[in-house]
């Protein structure tokens, strides 16, 4: 009540006003990177879209890319790339209240509001309206630089069905502690190995499991160790609806063993027809949110400074 209409009119246009017709897709994408209950995220806005960044100091970082093509309306008037901090848990819980099961609801997101808040409101009904104002904060200035560079001339990568990856990593909980990921070109194999309370080794052999290990690229043997809890964070929160989409996750090992895990989350408008029967235009690439995790390897004598 304290802002009179004339005051708010005098203010500059907000950096971003955008509308989205699939809230659930956005909720799914953000949920995938929510590995802790209380977690701070940084949101970066640009003319290309919205990027949400979450990190565990120095070890693990996740990014969700929502390209402007995912939005039904996207008006960016900011200068440069405005950033703000927000509680991820609150943001996800809040967006979730906008998602009505079995109905596609259109929401409008605006930043900043009169008090630097993030404003969200439903816009698809005249007689009822849901709205939210989320307090934002100034983000930490320095964030760990995850400069991902390929190790060598050919990238070392493999693509595995997300469900299989999640299952493998879940199974490795038993040995726990650190997990060794090894790739060898001949025969093309990916090995996850945990040595802790016990030993467990999971092999994905390219020629044997072509339906699970969808793609494989590796010209020399590599092997790095990663902390189990960080590896687990990359898959444990993928919503089951996303797993059911049966997409692949791509894992790439970069210079120094930095591991990049990429997932795809559909932000397509929910169709009434069954998605797998829907033959015309399976799912447009523009309706996909890209999610990337970066996991630093454990440092031991073999991998320090390369």
């Amino acid at each position, binding site marked *: 009540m304290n802002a009179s209409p004339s005051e708010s009119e005098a203010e500059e246009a907000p950096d971003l006003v955008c509308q989205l017709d699939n809230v659930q897709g956005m909720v799914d994408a953000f949920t995938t990177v929510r590995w802790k209950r209380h977690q701070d995220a940084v949101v970066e806005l640009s003319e290309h879209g919205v990027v949400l960044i979450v990190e565990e100091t120095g070890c693990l970082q996740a990014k969700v890319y929502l390209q402007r093509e995912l939005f039904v309306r996207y008006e960016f008037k900011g200068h440069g790339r405005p950033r703000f901090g927000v509680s991820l848990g*609150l943001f996800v819980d809040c967006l979730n*209240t906008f998602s009505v099961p079995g109905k596609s609801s259109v929401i409008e997101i605006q930043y900043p509001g009169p008090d630097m808040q993030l404003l969200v409101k439903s816009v698809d009904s005249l007689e*009822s309206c849901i709205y939210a104002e*989320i307090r934002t904060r100034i983000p930490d200035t320095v964030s760990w630089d995850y400069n991902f560079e390929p190790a060598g001339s050919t990238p070392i990568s493999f693509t595995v069905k997300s469900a299989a990856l999640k299952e493998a990593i879940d199974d490795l909980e038993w040995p726990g502690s650190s997990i060794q990921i090894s790739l060898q070109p001949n025969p093309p194999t990916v090995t996850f190995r945990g040595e802790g309370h016990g030993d467990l080794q999971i092999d994905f052999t390219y020629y044997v499991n072509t339906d699970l290990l969808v793609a494989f690229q590796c010209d020399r043997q590599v092997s790095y160790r990663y902390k189990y809890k960080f590896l687990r964070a990359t898959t444990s929160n993928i919503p089951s609806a996303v797993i059911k989409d049966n997409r692949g996750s791509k894992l790439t090992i970069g210079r120094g063993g930095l591991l990049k895990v990429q997932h795809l989350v559909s932000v397509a408008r929910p169709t009434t027809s069954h998605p797998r029967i829907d033959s015309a235009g399976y799912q447009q690439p523009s309706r996909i949110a890209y999610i990337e995790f970066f996991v630093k390897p454990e440092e031991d004598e073999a991998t320090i400074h390369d």
Partner: protein
Amino acid sequence: MKFKAFLTENGVSLLEKRFLPALDKMGKICHLFLNRDRVFFLHNLLNGDGVQSIAQFSKEALFDDYRISSQYDDCIAFTVDISLLQRALRSSVSICTEFGNGPTANRLQIKLAKKLTKNSTQRLPFLTFETKGYKSAVIQDVPISSPLSRNQVLELQTALDMAQDLPQTLVQVPDLNQLQNFVDRMRHVGDLLNISISKYGDLHIQISTTLITLGAEFQKLLVIGEQADAPSEDRNLSAQTRAARAVLRGDAQSVQVSVKHFGKSLQCHLAKPDCAFYGIALQGACLTLVFQFFIPGTHRLDKSISMHCRLPVLDQGSS
């Protein structure tokens, strides 16, 4: 003190499929209060801090051959565990349907009884369900509290009379299922819910913490009782501003209740009411949720069944 009656088929289906599941969500234990004409299921009437719920039935809605007598004006009241009542009723029903369909053979009789049990030397009070099948009879005893004393009954009767006042303005809840869904998701964000209800037919609910404000506004709802036309100059304002202005103008009331209580009251949709209304009692004493039931197949109010909830107010809100 005597009570004996036969549950009608309609009575069984009302209780088993609709009211007991709803009442079970309100709390495990309730008062069952019987008088010459009516039967009441009452929650939290004698202790002030939970959601009060009052479900009442005329005796014809549930029973035939209804006989009651007591020293206190033929009133009987006791507490009972709803889930036990539900179990007894459910298995009695399965026996009834199992054994043919003669006109009187399989009637379900319900009565008060005192019986000796294995673990006690005293005779304990029970509500007994007796089903006579084709060749056998099944008796189920649901343990109940000792019947309330004359003073306690009087106290319950007084609390019941006080709980019957209706708010001056009631607005129809748009879609109970949808609202419940929304509130279920909303409860992750905070514990306290601000509600304002206006004579224009606006229902505004909001959770506000230091980090987030999350709310919903429903406009142009059906109003029962005192109503007014929404001022046209408010049309383009935000939901929050609109609600605040209506309160200042005296056209709306605002109260704060617990999100948990609010969610609980919405569970009453399990009783399959035909419509539901929210209103705020005079001076913001409580938030009232009134359910209406129609005579099946019509849009006429079934006066033999009624149900309403009263949610305790945590703060007077901004009014």
